[in-house]
């Protein structure tokens, strides 16, 4: 395509603006809603020690799309939990919906029985049942909660803000949550089935005879020979998804108010099921002050990529400007979520057009340029697909490169030949944007880390998959093959975990119940603490973990259909009593 179809999408979106305002004003019954109430957009705020969160089926509409959703306390996203470090929290989860449900407190340090993962720490809360969560709040920062079931993509998620017991590290005048998500009118089961049986059914940015991608004929033939697609960036994208900010689609005109001269804290949470976003506010620099809820030394950037389940807090100073557009562009640039930062209601800044879709590069195939390329850590990306021509005859699947514990079979369609550390990479498509883009290497923890021991053990885990069959796994094994063979850590063990991505997709890997420290070049005591790490395609990433939370913890790719087709494992920390008697 590219530009023509994408413009069409945009035009269609704009055209529906007027219609939506009208439709949105009509009550559900007047619009013939037969199957459930209509979800409200945006969150209410819950604070205090005791909450009830009620899950229900609903219909959701956004733009011209309409389909099944799941609400918590009537809204999508569900309520914002505004908590205080040091308080206790009791939540009664009430399931009024038609599916099994749960709430996972993403990023919170909780006793494992409160972690909310069906099959691992609890049984799913069946329709009509209740479940009581009860735990102390041991941390501060920006987090979120979500169902650990297929209700998540339907709307079962919401933000958490925890105010610190002491002073905030930064001063600001306004504090907003910007929760990014993706919603489709198609049921998750249907999406998963289509991903299984068809080849990239939701990608309408494939290479064609008439596209204007900067690829030579030889490069196109090379991709065809490998039976892979340089445009395989996101499995599900705008032709199906509407990108939401706090439950609002691009046409809704979501506004965040400011007065000239104010400092505004924006807490970005990627609560999407399947989408990475490139976030920028044209004309405004963002100072990143926290990642995954943990304070980092301030870094000023113009754009950052946020993987599923990550959070970034930024401070912006709009000065005397009138209005600025908050742009959350999907990584494959098929669509965007939008909101306005505005000094007067109704004021609008220009919405930038979608940028050209990115292409996967040689680095994404796990081929570094050899010594020179990895030396600087910067120019992996410059190895554009063009440079890969001489690699055409190489094996994309040399299984002899895999350690013996990786199960080789039809579930692995690629092995990264030279998986270099890619923490200095800004993310797919952001290398040449011409302004400052955040990388993991820029993150430095603001405070000293609690455990600065050198890890005693290295644990390597391969992220594996087969795009064609839509199989995803760790070490070539789906959850069913390792149900009795979890990833084991001893209590208080200090382990370095190396994740090697043998696929051409970026995976946001999340470990429950813990923070780990990225091995990103920051001084050991200031390695940034995170709960989710993106492992770039064909590359590797390492983190140091102190396994100090006994129990069983889910460990998985946060792309929900990757998790639900096998990229899921359990991490055990034993002994359960910590072994100290």
């Amino acid at each position: 395509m590219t530009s023509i179809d994408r413009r069409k999408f945009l035009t269609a979106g704009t055209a529906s603006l007027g219609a939506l305002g009208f439709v949105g004003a009509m009550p559900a019954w007047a619009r013939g809603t037969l199957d459930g109430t209509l979800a409200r957009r945006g969150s209410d705020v819950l604070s205090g020690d005791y909450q009830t969160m009620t899950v229900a089926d609903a219909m959701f509409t956004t733009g011209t799309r309409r389909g099944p959703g799941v609400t918590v306390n009537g809204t999508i996203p569900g309520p914002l939990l505004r908590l205080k470090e040091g308080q206790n929290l009791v939540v009664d989860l009430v399931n009024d919906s038609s599916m099994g449900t749960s709430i996972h407190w993403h990023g919170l340090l909780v006793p494992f029985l409160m972690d909310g993962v069906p099959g691992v720490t609890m049984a799913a809360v069946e329709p009509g049942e209740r479940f009581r969560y009860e735990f102390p709040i041991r941390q501060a920062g920006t987090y979120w909660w979500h169902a650990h079931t297929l209700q998540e993509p339907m709307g079962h998620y919401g933000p958490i803000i925890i105010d610190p017991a002491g002073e905030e590290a930064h001063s600001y005048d306004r504090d907003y949550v910007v929760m990014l998500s993706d919603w489709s009118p198609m049921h998750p089961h249907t999406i998963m089935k289509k991903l299984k049986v068809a080849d990239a059914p939701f990608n309408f940015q494939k290479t064609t005879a008439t596209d204007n991608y900067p690829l030579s004929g030889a490069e196109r033939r090379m991709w065809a020979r490998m039976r892979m697609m340089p445009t395989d960036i996101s499995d599900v994208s705008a032709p199906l998804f509407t990108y939401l900010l706090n439950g609002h689609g691009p046409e809704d005109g979501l506004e965040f108010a400011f007065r000239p001269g104010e400092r505004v804290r924006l807490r970005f949470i990627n609560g999407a099921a399947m989408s990475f976003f490139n976030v920028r506010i044209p004309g405004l620099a963002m100072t990143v002050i926290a990642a995954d809820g943990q304070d980092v030394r301030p870094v000023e950037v113009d754009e950052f990529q946020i993987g599923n389940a990550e959070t970034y807090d930024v401070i912006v100073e709009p000065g005397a400007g009138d209005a600025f557009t908050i742009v959350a562009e999907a990584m494959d640039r098929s669509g965007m979520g939008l909101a306005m930062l505005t000094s007067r209601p109704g004021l609008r800044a220009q919405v930038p057009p979608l940028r050209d879709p990115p292409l996967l590069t040689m680095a994404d195939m796990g081929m570094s340029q050899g010594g020179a390329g990895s030396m600087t850590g910067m120019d992996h990306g410059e190895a554009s697909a063009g440079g890969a021509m001489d690699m055409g005859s190489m094996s994309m699947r040399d299984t002899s490169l895999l350690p013996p514990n990786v199960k080789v079979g039809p579930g692995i369609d690629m092995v990264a030949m030279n998986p270099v550390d890619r923490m200095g990479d800004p993310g797919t498509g952001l290398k040449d944007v011409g302004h400052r883009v955040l990388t993991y290497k820029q993150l430095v923890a603001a405070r000293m880390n609690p455990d600065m021991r050198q890890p005693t053990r290295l644990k390597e885990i391969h992220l594996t998959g087969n795009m064609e069959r839509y199989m995803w796994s760790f070490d070539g094994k789906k959850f069913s093959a390792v149900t009795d063979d979890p990833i084991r850590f001893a209590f208080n063990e200090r382990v370095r975990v190396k994740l090697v991505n043998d696929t051409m997709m970026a995976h946001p890997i999340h470990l429950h119940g813990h923070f780990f420290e990225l091995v990103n070049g920051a001084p050991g005591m200031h390695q940034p603490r995170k709960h989710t790490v993106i492992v770039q395609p064909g590359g590797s990433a390492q983190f140091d973990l102190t396994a100090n939370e006994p129990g069983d913890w889910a460990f998985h790719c946060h792309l929900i259909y990757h998790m639900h087709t096998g990229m899921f494992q359990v991490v055990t920390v034993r002994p359960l009593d910590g072994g100290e008697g």
Partner: protein
Amino acid sequence: MKRAILFSLPLLALSAPGWAEQHDHATAAQVEPADPAATTTAAQQEVMDHSAMEHGEMEHGKMDMPVDQEPMAHSQMDHGSVPMPRQEAPMDASKMDHASMVDQSPIPAGPPPPEAFSAPAFAADEFVGADKMAASRASVVREVSGVPVYWFQADRAEYRAREGKDGYLWDVQGYYGGDIDKFWFKSEGEGNFGEKPESAEVQALWSHAIAPRWDIQAGVRQDLTGPERTHAVIGVQGLAPYLFELDAAAFVSNKGDITARIEGELDQRITQRLILQPRAELSLSAQDIPELGIGAGLDRAELGLRLRYEFVREFAPYIGVEQEWKVGKSADYARAAGEDPSVTNYVVGIRLWF
């Protein structure tokens, strides 16, 4: 003679995954890993330097050190537990490779300590109830590791305009199963309007994934027209390099006849929705089968070109042209039966799946 050649067909077909997956590894040496020895030495050298420093009070951010070296320097810093043989090899910064320095960390890989294997196997069992957790775990394992999937595709369902009587053709397939093993069925048939179908068959196959993009398939085929026959089937189906979809199968009938078929298709996207699909099919036989009008050797060849428009991915009408040739003795049989061994079809049809 011909029989021998045809016997080897299934073998040939079976070897497809081999050449499909294994490109020459020899050239892989192009990517030069950094010299591990040199790197380790450099790392250890660094460690030594640092061990002499006062760590607690060091302000790392202000250390006058090339940015390039920071990650390794700090990550290798001595925290007391790593043995460090002193080595004198000079450090050559120009050869240092960041990425592989991180890779070649001195932290040893190894099994978890024994206490990591302490009971219980499943931590929640005691608190939630072992039965309840076992049931919950079973359902999550099933959900997360692949619920069986069904798929039906009409690759071709078309009207064929041609000299003489116009005809029709169907070519459908589908499966039910998991990632590796599936029940697969196929059905094909064609005929002229107002007459008995010229050919019609169904196949029931067990399909097993043998490579990332290849399945081996075995089962039975039942012919529904003419002198009815049952065949044993063995074949492979999958995606060859350059994105050719291939389906090759050999058949042994209950009369002892051996035949084979190879089909290949290639989707050429013109736009995101407009797709040109060249298609070729060859039928072969190890022997003459006069009652079916099949001659030994290459029996039939078809070349087609279809242009489809995907209104949605699942539903795409198409137009096209397909040329069929009966070859050799099969052509003689056709002529003897008063048929033209070469037929041009102008086709209109739909391709759909669900």
